[in-house]
């Protein structure tokens, strides 16, 4: 086996030496501990002994050459195994993977959501260039820059109250707060899909179920599921903003636009709820034309708010107001009461705590909204009073299974119970 003769460590500060003498020439026979070569440093001359018996095969370095610690000087042919010197092998029990890794950017920018994209289109959110230009123009601290990045703010738009007009953290927070109300007039949610509907043939098991259901009921086999929603947060939000918005935009936002939005969000995960059943085909809609049942003197009419998915809360509220007015004055046009993809009926206004609404054919579902009542509920083991809304969702059991509808309703309620992420937009 080959053994490689290396320059041993020659002292704490020494990194190199000079090979001054070959004691064993090529071809020489070597016994254990025979001196092989002499290396000189400014501290000491060292004779390097051989750990093995064998033959000097080849010198790798000439006399008077400067050699580094750990450098190979010669190759010896030795008998048997060689325990390679590990002094210069810094590999350890766990390995050599201790290489410095570049750290990731410390600032977690807000996720670039669809809502954010839209805000940018509308000029509420600044683009990358404006944000950076703002940094250059305005004296700002690290926290201000972080907030500006996370909330897409051009600091030139923020009034600064610090020394020399510096924008402070407080200034930015005030600016973001003020912007929340501005956000409300803009649509905040758009489906990216271009096609407007998807046609799924009702075949196989679904067809069997359909025929079975038709046979067992008159036309639509209705099933209604109930679930309760804690409206505390929406209520708090309304309390805080409703007057301000009414003053600024002339419309009083009721709970209905929130419910409409929650349907849209929940239907993203449960799309069959927002659909029509026509000639054994289920038309799953990628847009939301929401029918709002309006009670008139002796009858009921369901005007449709078109493309709610493209509208802001404020716009939906405005449209609802307008449709109700039109309904009450008989001014609704035919296209304003057709083309619905899902409906909402509010029996709460008259005090109902529960109802099983009838589906507007060929739609698949209708949501019954009822009176919000203060109820004792258990939170974290404590009995507390919360405003509770009892929803009733009727669905067409031919195409929608119970579990699907129950999950949809729960999802919708979750959005209403945790509205911060979507109602308040960016915060």
């Amino acid at each position, binding site marked *: 086996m080959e053994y490689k003769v290396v320059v041993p460590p020659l002292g704490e500060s020494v990194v190199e030496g000079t090979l001054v003498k070959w004691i064993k020439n090529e071809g020489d026979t070597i016994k254990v501990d025979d001196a092989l070569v002499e290396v000189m440093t400014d501290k000491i001359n060292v004779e390097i002994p051989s750990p093995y018996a064998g033959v000097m095969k080849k010198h790798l370095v000439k006399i008077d050459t400067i050699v580094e610690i750990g450098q190979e000087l010669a190759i010896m042919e030795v008998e048997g195994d060689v325990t390679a010197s590990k002094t210069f092998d810094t590999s350890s029990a766990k390995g050599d993977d201790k290489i410095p890794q570049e750290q990731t950017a*410390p*600032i977690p920018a807000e996720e670039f959501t669809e809502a954010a994209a839209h805000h940018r289109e509308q000029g509420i959110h600044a683009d990358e260039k404006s944000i950076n230009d703002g940094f250059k123009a305005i004296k700002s*601290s*690290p*926290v*201000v*820059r*972080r907030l500006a990045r996370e909330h897409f703010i051009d600091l030139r738009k923020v009034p600064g109250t*610090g*020394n020399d007009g*510096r924008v*402070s*953290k407080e200034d930015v927070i005030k600016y973001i707060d003020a912007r929340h109300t501005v956000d409300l007039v803009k649509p905040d949610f758009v489906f990216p899909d271009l096609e407007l509907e998807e046609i799924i043939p009702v075949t196989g098991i679904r067809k069997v179920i359909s025929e079975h259901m038709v046979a067992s009921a008159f036309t639509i086999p209705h099933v209604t599921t109930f679930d309760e929603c804690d409206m505390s947060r929406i209520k708090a939000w309304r309390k805080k903003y409703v007057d301000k918005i009414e003053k600024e935009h002339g419309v009083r936002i009721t709970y209905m636009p929130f419910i409409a939005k929650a349907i849209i969000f929940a239907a993203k995960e449960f799309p069959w709820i927002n659909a029509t059943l026509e000639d054994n085909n289920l038309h799953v809609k990628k847009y939301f034309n929401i029918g709002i049942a309006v009670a008139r003197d002796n009858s009921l009419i369901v005007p449709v708010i078109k493309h709610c998915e493209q509208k802001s809360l404020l716009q939906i509220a405005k449209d609802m107001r307008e449709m109700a007015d039109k309904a009450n004055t008989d001014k609704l046009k035919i296209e304003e009461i057709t083309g619905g993809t899902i409906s909402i009926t509010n029996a709460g206004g008259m005090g109902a705590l529960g109802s099983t609404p009838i589906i507007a054919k060929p739609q698949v579902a209708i949501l019954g909204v009822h009176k919000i009542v203060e109820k004792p509920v258990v939170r974290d083991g404590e009995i507390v009073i919360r405003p509770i809304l009892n929803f009733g969702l009727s669905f067409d059991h031919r195409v929608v299974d119970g579990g699907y509808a129950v999950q949809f309703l729960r999802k919708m309620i979750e959005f209403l119970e945790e509205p911060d992420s979507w109602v308040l937009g960016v915060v």
Partner: protein
Amino acid sequence: MKKTTFIEAITEALDEEMARDERVFLIGEDIGIYGGVFKATKGLLDKYGAARVIDSPISEVYIAGGSVGAAMVGLRPVPEIQFADFITPSMDQIIQQMAKLRYRSGGQWTCPMTMRVCCGADIGGGLYHSQTNEQWFFSQPGLIVVMPSTPYDAKGLLKSAIRGDDPVIYFEHKRLYRWIKEEIPEDDFTVPIGKAALRKEGSDVTLVAYGLMYHRSMEAALALEKDGISAEVIDMRTILPWDREMILESVKKTSKAVLVQESSKTGGVMAEISATIMEEVFDYLDAPVTRVCGLDVPAVPFAPPMEHYFLPNAEKISKAVKKIIEY
């Protein structure tokens, strides 16, 4: 409950730990017959005998190194360094033995000992009886460094130090000995090492200090309150390892920090705290991190006006706070 002074709390802790654990013994200059120059060990010689309350010769090297040895064979030494100013001869033993013994022996040998060091100015002590030099030990991993500011913490931290398995430098500020009194529980209690205390909540600025400077910072915070500035006050209590979480979380909340330290500014504890704030929570800062420290001169000068000029006080701290609030 009766009110206990800072120094009584220390005596009580020593007494109770010596009664609880016969491995605990004391060694130091003038601690036996005389009861200590500040009377921290008063009465203990009579109670526990000369084998456990040892009057040492003037040998700070040995007081430190001898304690390391006694700790190695299973005792719990509590040596006293009469004045922090005189700790310098012990440095070799503290740095090379006390701090490194566990490390250099791969954990075979340990050094559970608590070195009490009487420190601090504002007592008219002059150059050689006023120093606080915690920063020398703060930069030596392997040591625990604590500096309590209240009788409760003085007692609880001393007990934790004596009971723990690590070498502790326990700084006790002389100015606090008989000035600060409070009611403390009679039952056995400890204060955890490594945890700071949030003494006052606030939203506008974070004040960080320890020892006497905690009290000065609190005075400033209460004065600032009247000006409508809400200061959060953190008493570090343990200097090494310091409570990163509490300080960094507070600065994240307030976005501003004023760090107060009695010893000289350059290379002090607060330089490290400041650098860490910069490294870890830079994106939360709304003003430069500011330090209020002792002067960069060799030690605390003697003449009273000069001593007061050297030391941070509530007024100097308030001024620094206002400057960054207005920033």
